[in-house]
């Protein structure tokens, strides 16, 4: 160990004290002796402590006086002895009273153990006690009460749900009617626009057709007028002599004896 000039900084204080009072084991003693050779502060402290111890031994007490004890009045007793003595000291009423109280307490304990049930209603008192199967009964009672509670909870939940459903349905219905009304309005608007547009186009087309027919008619009249001035060589060449041309052809076929209806055979 590193030599120290101040014993307070050496970390072997406990070893020093153990060695000082001769309580070190042979191994510890040998090791600390070696340490003292190397640590001047511990060596110095050992010397100083030895002086202090020497001084302490100068203070000796005089012969101790004999202690006078009055023991018989204070003899220690066991719990059994105390209870026995208590039994002889206590008055009879206290002992009997204590006995009754203990019996009452015991009875209550038994009633509790036997699952005793006491009811009071309009019909009067009813008393029930079971030794065996009381647990099952209790469990059944608990189950029964639990099922009643479950039913009550279910009905309340169902009622609340139905009320909520009705509210939702009402809101939905109102929304649906509103949307339907809006749709109808939109459709009416669209159909109005469409009919107006189609009428306009129709009248335009009619006018156009009339105009075209008028033009055709005028052209046809001009041709007719032109042909009436210049006589035709054949009826077949006249595209406007529709009635005369057909009559001639039908009469021609009828003269050849053919049945145009095909029923004569």
């Amino acid at each position, binding site marked *: 160990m590193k030599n120290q000039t101040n014993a307070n900084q050496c970390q072997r204080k406990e070893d020093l*004290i153990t060695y000082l009072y001769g309580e070190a084991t042979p191994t510890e003693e040998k090791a600390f002796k070696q340490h003292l050779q190397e640590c001047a502060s511990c060596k110095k402290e050992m010397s100083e402590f030895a002086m202090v111890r020497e001084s302490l031994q100068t203070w000796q007490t005089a012969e101790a006086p004999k202690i006078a*004890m009055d023991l018989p009045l204070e003899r220690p007793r066991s719990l059994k002895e105390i209870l026995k003595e208590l039994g002889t000291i206590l008055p009879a009423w206290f002992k009997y009273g204590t006995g009754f109280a203990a019996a009452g307490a015991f009875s209550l304990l038994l009633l509790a153990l036997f699952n005793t049930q006491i009811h009071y209603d309009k019909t009067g008192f009813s008393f029930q006690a079971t030794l065996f199967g009381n647990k099952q009964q209790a469990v059944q009672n608990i189950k029964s009460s639990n099922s009643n509670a479950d039913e009550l909870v279910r009905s309340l939940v169902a009622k609340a749900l139905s009320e909520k459903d009705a509210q939702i349905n009402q809101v939905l219905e109102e929304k649906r009617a509103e949307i339907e009304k809006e749709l109808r309005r939109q459709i009416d608007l669209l159909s109005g626009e469409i009919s107006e547009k189609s009428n306009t186009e129709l009248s335009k087309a009619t006018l156009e057709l009339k105009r075209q027919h008028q033009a055709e008619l005028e052209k046809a009249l001009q041709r007719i007028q032109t042909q009436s001035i210049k006589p035709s060589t054949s009826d077949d060449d006249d595209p406007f002599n529709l009635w005369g041309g057909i009559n001639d052809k039908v009469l021609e076929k009828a003269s050849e004896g053919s049945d145009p209806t095909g029923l004569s055979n």
Partner: protein
Amino acid sequence: MEISDNEIIERTLNGEIEAFNILVRRWERQIYGLAYRMLGRDEEAYDICQETFLAAYRNLNKFRGEAKFSSWLYRIALNCCHTRLRSRANNDLSLEQQLEDQGFEPVTDIEHLNDGLHRDQIAELVRRALAGMPPEMRQVIIMKEYQGLKFHEIAEVLNIPISTVKTRVYTGLEQLKQRLNHLKNLL
């Protein structure tokens, strides 16, 4: 062969009351010495002795025999001493004793502490130096130096670790070294 403390206790508990007086005679000197050095007054030391043995007798059925009877007895005695010390008022101490409680200058010449002093004078210095120490420190020094208890026995009495006992003894000796030198300078 000497009858053991535990056998005497058993006999006492079995109704042989006078057997307890054997224990009183056996331990009264040590208990008196402990109380005297803790309190510094022989009348109080005697009272503490009586209180200690009476308390031990009354509670003898609570003694389990796990510790030595002497350790149990020392513990009772120290408890009685501490109660007595607490009841003392601070003004009970002299001005000089109060100054002693406030600390001292570092020691320079402990090697020559006892030079030129009569043995009774040194004993008086020791008494005063011990009286100025804290009771927790003083009791450890007394049990070690005057009662001759081993470190593990002191640890058993005080119910503290052995290392703590050694530390307290070391610190106690350091304080005594300083106090004794200081008192010597006052002479």
